[in-house]
């Protein structure tokens, strides 16, 4: 019995919780990507760096607050600073749209042009962030690190395996779920949300219905700013902030958005979990778990690992491709331009 519990705890600690948290992080990023794809109809490569920008502003404000002695008790002070991050990101995105994207929208440029333009924007934002805060790691987390740490858990339960659950993991998971539900509701139930979908479907006809395109675009960027800054800050809190990483984060984020079905918020979260779980689960060596579950005689002396972690990306992409083969526009019937 104890063995069974230990096995469950090991699996939760190294597979379930990390994958849930990582999946939520991906989902938050993927939501922004998927929203831009859904409404403005292009894959935004600058999203990773938008997240970095939002996180950067949040960090700067957090430092300010920390300097003033403001804190949130057990919760990270950064939560207080996120609204400022969002506001700054919103300003940045609206400016970018005004200076860059609007021109191509009016030209009715092909989506791929926008994709390439967004790469240009990515380079510029990337330079901007590194310019302002530098290329290095920055730490800004405070408050309680853990809801429960491995050591406490062991003491509490007397089990030989520990289970750690970080505050940031908790916040991320909760936020992701709330945001997905809210966004889904907003897009499918509210007038503004529907008008945004209408705009993405048929811009000319949206005009004929009296929908104001500028407003739709603005609302989209505002929501994206909220998502990007929140996602960026939460990611930075959980791991650490480093501008370069946000660029790397883009790949799994896109994968999550695509496998879930582009343009669909529910897809983004499903996609996030698919990617996260396939990375963590397939490469997890079962040695310890089996060690608890099987009688001593059968205890494995190898790692019992299906594939080495070298191939964790390969695994998640293989799964992605298999999913797409059966559901060509993702789990939740996404769009394609």
């Amino acid at each position, binding site marked *: 019995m104890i063995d069974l519990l230990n096995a469950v705890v090991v699996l939760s600690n190294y597979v379930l919780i990390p994958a849930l948290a990582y999946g939520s992080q991906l989902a938050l990023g993927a939501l922004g990507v998927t929203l831009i794809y859904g409404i403005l109809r292009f894959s935004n490569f600058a999203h990773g760096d938008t997240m970095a920008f939002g996180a950067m502003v949040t960090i700067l404000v957090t430092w300010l607050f920390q300097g003033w002695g403001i804190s949130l008790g057990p919760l990270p002070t950064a939560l207080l600073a996120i609204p400022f991050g969002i506001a700054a990101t919103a300003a940045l995105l609206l400016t970018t749209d005004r200076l860059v994207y609007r021109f191509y929208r009016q030209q009715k440029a092909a989506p791929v042009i926008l994709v*390439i333009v967004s*790469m*240009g924007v990515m380079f510029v934002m990337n330079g901007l962030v590194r310019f302002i805060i530098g290329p290095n790691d920055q730490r800004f987390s405070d408050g309680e690190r853990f809801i429960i740490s491995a050591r406490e858990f062991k003491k509490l339960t007397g089990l030989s395996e520990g289970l750690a659950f970080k505050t940031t993991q908790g916040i991320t998971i909760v936020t992701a779920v709330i945001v997905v539900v809210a966004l889904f509701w907003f897009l499918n139930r509210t007038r503004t949300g529907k008008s945004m979908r209408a705009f993405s479907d048929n811009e000319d006809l949206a005009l004929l219905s009296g929908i104001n395109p500028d407003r739709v675009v603005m609302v989209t960027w505002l929501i994206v700013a909220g998502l990007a800054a929140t996602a960026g800050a939460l990611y930075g809190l959980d791991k650490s902030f480093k501008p370069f990483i946000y660029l790397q984060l883009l790949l799994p984020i896109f994968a999550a958005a695509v496998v879930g079905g582009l343009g669909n918020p529910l897809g983004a979260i499903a996609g996030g979990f698919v990617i996260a779980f396939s990375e963590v689960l397939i490469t997890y060596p079962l040695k310890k778990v089996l060690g608890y579950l099987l009688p001593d005689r059968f205890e494995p002396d190898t790692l019992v690992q299906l594939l080495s972690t070298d191939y964790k990306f390969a695994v998640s992409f293989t799964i992605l*491709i298999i999913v797409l083969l059966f559901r060509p526009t993702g789990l939740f019937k996404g769009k394609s331009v």
Partner: protein
Amino acid sequence: MTINYKNIGLFFLVACLILGTGFVQSWNTALFILNMGLVSAIMALGVNLQWGFAGLFNVGIMGFVALGGLAAVLISMPPTTEAWAAGGLRVILGIVLGAATVTTAILVQLRMAAGPARTLTTIAILIGGFFLYRAVFDGGVAAVEAVDAAGTGYLGGLNFGGASYKDWGFMTLISWPVGGLLAAGVAWLIGKTALGLRSDYLAIATLGISEIIIAVMKNEDWLSRGVKNVIGLPRPVPYEIELQESAGFIEHTTALGLDPVTSSSIVVKLGYAGLFSIVLVIVLILAQLALASPWGRMMRAIRDNEEAAEAMGKNVTARHLQIFILGSAICGVAGAMMTTLDSQLTPSSYQPLRFTFLVWVMVIVGGSGNNFGSVLGGFLIFFLWVQVEPMGAILMQILTSGMAEDNVLRLHLLDSVAHMRLLTMGLILILVLRFAPKGLIPEK
């Protein structure tokens, strides 16, 4: 006809940029840009074939380029005889077993009637095959990798020149078409499975596959030393040192009043430029002929509306596969050429940003759907890629010129010069597309 002047003007402009580099900076740098521009132009042609002609959103270019590089190693390096003796056959046997397992499984799927029996047999074959494969293969790999891990530790290639393998530089030329074939083979596999996907879904699938290819090249040390890199590939052109030591060469250069060291590297680069130009011209002519023919028309029709093209008797799936393989093969050839130019294979230098997206930028900025646009884009963007670094520095100097010597902002700005490289690239990209939203030489 005016449009033609504009295009010639654009090519002239790029030529001037490269020549200008030669005059202002150095001819070596100019030739380096020229050579990489030639290779990039070929890659861009491959991508243009897929995207511009057929609308296939392939974001896995990096993988095909890397496969070309792999071919360069597999063809032009000497075999590691000890490694072959230690476990070469076992590795090969392992691979054969693996392939046989998959083939048998597929055959079972095709031949047996559907039902639990078939599923069970397939699973049994796959699992049994997997363990058999691992048992045979892993041992072989361990043996191969144990052979002088720091120096070789891999099976090596097919260059039988022995100790003087470096003199067999023509082997690298053979590796170019082989790189194309290797890429084509993998493209065929991918195409068979994934080409049914649309737009961005195909994109992410190809992106993933290219990451998988790189992962394999990074981690399978027995194949090409993984992240330990293979350096010192033979060359199809003479070595600078040889030229510098050859009496005849020194005589010629001094007669012309040139420095033998500089001229040796220029001569070598010109050699590469000649070889690359031949390939580019061939690919360009073939692509251009194909585009301006009923075949090109059919491809454009498929790109415009697959359903209607299918109804008009065009086999869309087969055509997509054809052009996907062709475009990928061209990228493979270019990849082998690039590895030849670098004379080394370093898997970790294959980054999507550099090898996939930069090529896309070339195609789009050049003008997708237009072969000359792709060639122009290849040269121009690579020129920028190299030159934005000094440009970024100049930009910073201009920005800071008015500030006091110890101005904090000035120091901060100068500190961040290195980050201005990508920023400058981004700005230029945005500006170019602003003034030529359909690319510099748009499709007609």
